[in-house]
């Protein structure tokens, strides 16, 4: 801009003070800012306003990509639309088939836990947000989404797609929010291995398609293909959502821990739309009842409650005092989850091997879903 360039050679008003002095001032200011932001967290408001100011520019940068996507969608050929339609119909049928037994199993599950009826789903409602195509920090795995505090988004809110967990919100601005993905090297998710119930932590690696599980001992029962679910510990993520699948287990005789890698189920490399989830604050499986409940807003556009990204196994409430044998939580969760998976559509049979390791407390360890009703009846009768 010539106008600015012409002015560039004009002496600035702050000319009188030496540059060294001004540098010291700026450096002190920066250090104070960092200290206040990092240690005290007083700058949350300032950051909120600044990120609101930054958002228009980010949208502008993102707009070419958006426009291209819009063009693609607008000029999609009839054939491709028909193909997509057929695919969606197929998908819908598959999901319907999988969820047929879900209701019945959820009720059965509730009865086993000594509840009169199944707990409602932990997810209260969710909102679709679009990813703003802006580079945040190339060395970290973060994305910007187009929903912010004005839409009811809060810090540490769970973000997922229809396949699994994506991450959580980090900085929330008025109209946008920064999401830290589970693959970010700074991110860690408390998980449990679905097959065995072993709890550990999945840490991001910075790569797009890999999580590391550094805290598993070398003799841990884990093998490629095992599913990782959120364990519900840590207070951010609810229990029982799918996170990743183990891809690689390497055991070194001299190393105390196994080298385990997992691949996230969520499509982290090609995501355009993500889902922000609100959880029921009073639900036993809800992550942080206090903060989640306070920030839930009912008037938001939400998804169809009949459709869940994945079924939510509920955390058990303490069994009635007179119940002699409280059914073990784990074994029930397995059945609740097993229902919609293809491998278990007809009878929801859970692997008996998993039962053996899980049923440490459960005296009448149910062997399979179909036989569950019998051993559970004493508990129910006592109620």
């Amino acid at each position, binding site marked *: *801009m010539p106008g600015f360039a012409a002015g560039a050679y004009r002496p600035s008003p*702050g000319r009188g003070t030496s540059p060294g002095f001004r540098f010291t001032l700026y450096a002190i200011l920066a250090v104070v800012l960092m200290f206040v932001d990092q240690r005290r967290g007083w*700058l949350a408001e300032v950051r909120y306003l600044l990120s609101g100011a930054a958002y228009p520019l980010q949208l502008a940068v993102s707009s070419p990509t958006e426009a291209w996507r819009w063009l693609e969608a607008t000029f999609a050929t009839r054939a491709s639309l028909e193909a997509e339609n057929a695919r969606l119909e197929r998908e819908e049928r598959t999901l319907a088939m999988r969820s047929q037994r879900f209701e019945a199993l959820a009720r059965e599950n509730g009865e086993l836990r000594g509840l009169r009826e199944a707990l409602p789903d932990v997810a209260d409602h969710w909102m679709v947000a679009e990813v703003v195509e802006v580079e945040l920090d190339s060395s970290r795995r973060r994305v910007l989404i187009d929903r912010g505090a004005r839409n009811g988004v809060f810090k540490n809110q769970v973000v997922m797609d229809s396949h699994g967990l994506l991450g959580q919100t980090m900085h929330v601005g008025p109209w946008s929010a920064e999401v830290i993905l589970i693959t970010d090297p700074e991110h860690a998710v408390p998980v449990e291995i679905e097959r065995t119930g072993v709890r550990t932590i999945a840490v991001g690696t910075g790569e797009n398609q890999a999580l590391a599980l550094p805290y598993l001992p070398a003799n841990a029962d884990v093998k490629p293909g095992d599913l990782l679910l959120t364990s519900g510990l840590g207070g951010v993520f609810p229990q029982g959502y799918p996170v990743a699948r183990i891809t690689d287990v390497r055991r070194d005789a001299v190393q105390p821990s196994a080298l385990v890698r997992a691949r996230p189920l969520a499509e982290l490399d090609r995501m355009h739309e993500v889902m922000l989830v609100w959880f029921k604050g009073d639900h036993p499986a809800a992550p942080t009842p206090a903060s989640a409940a306070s920030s839930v807003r009912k008037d938001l556009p939400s998804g169809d409650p009949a459709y869940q990204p994945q079924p939510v196994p509920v955390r058990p409430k303490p069994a009635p005092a007179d119940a002699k044998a409280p059914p073990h939580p784990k074994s029930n969760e397995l059945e609740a989850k097993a229902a919609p998976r293809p491998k278990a559509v007809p009878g929801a049979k859970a692997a008996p091997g998993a039962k053996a390791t899980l049923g440490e407390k459960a005296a009448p360890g149910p062997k399979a879903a179909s036989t569950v009703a019998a051993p559970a009846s004493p508990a129910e009768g006592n109620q």
Partner: protein
Amino acid sequence: MVFTALVGLLLTILPLPPWLALLRPAFLVLTVLYWSIAAPRAGGLALGFASGLTLDVFRGAVLGQHALALSTITYVAVREHQKIRSKPAFQQMLIVLGALIVYEFILFAIDGWSGHPMTSPLRWVHAATGALVWPLATALLERTHSRR
């Protein structure tokens, strides 16, 4: 000047495929360096600090992190602007490389101090590419004010 800084910022946040994003020079930093050397009185430290703070907001970093790093190299550039200006292009590139490494080192140190360590060696790549595009960047930036 503000306009070029804005262009630098846009280039910094433009979405790129990951491998290209790693090579992406820190355009805003280069722009600020250029103005500190070519017109030290105009922008100077204020420009460096403001640009750094903008980067903090856009990067989601600790507020003040980029501001401190950028103010530091701006200060050095402003103080030594006459010496740097008189150097041939290749030596200028080396100086810019050094400045970018100092810049990245300050970021690196603050990352570690604030509990967001990022030890990947790939974070240093942009210093080299930044130095490589420096002659091109100066040629382009000169045109923004030599027309007058």
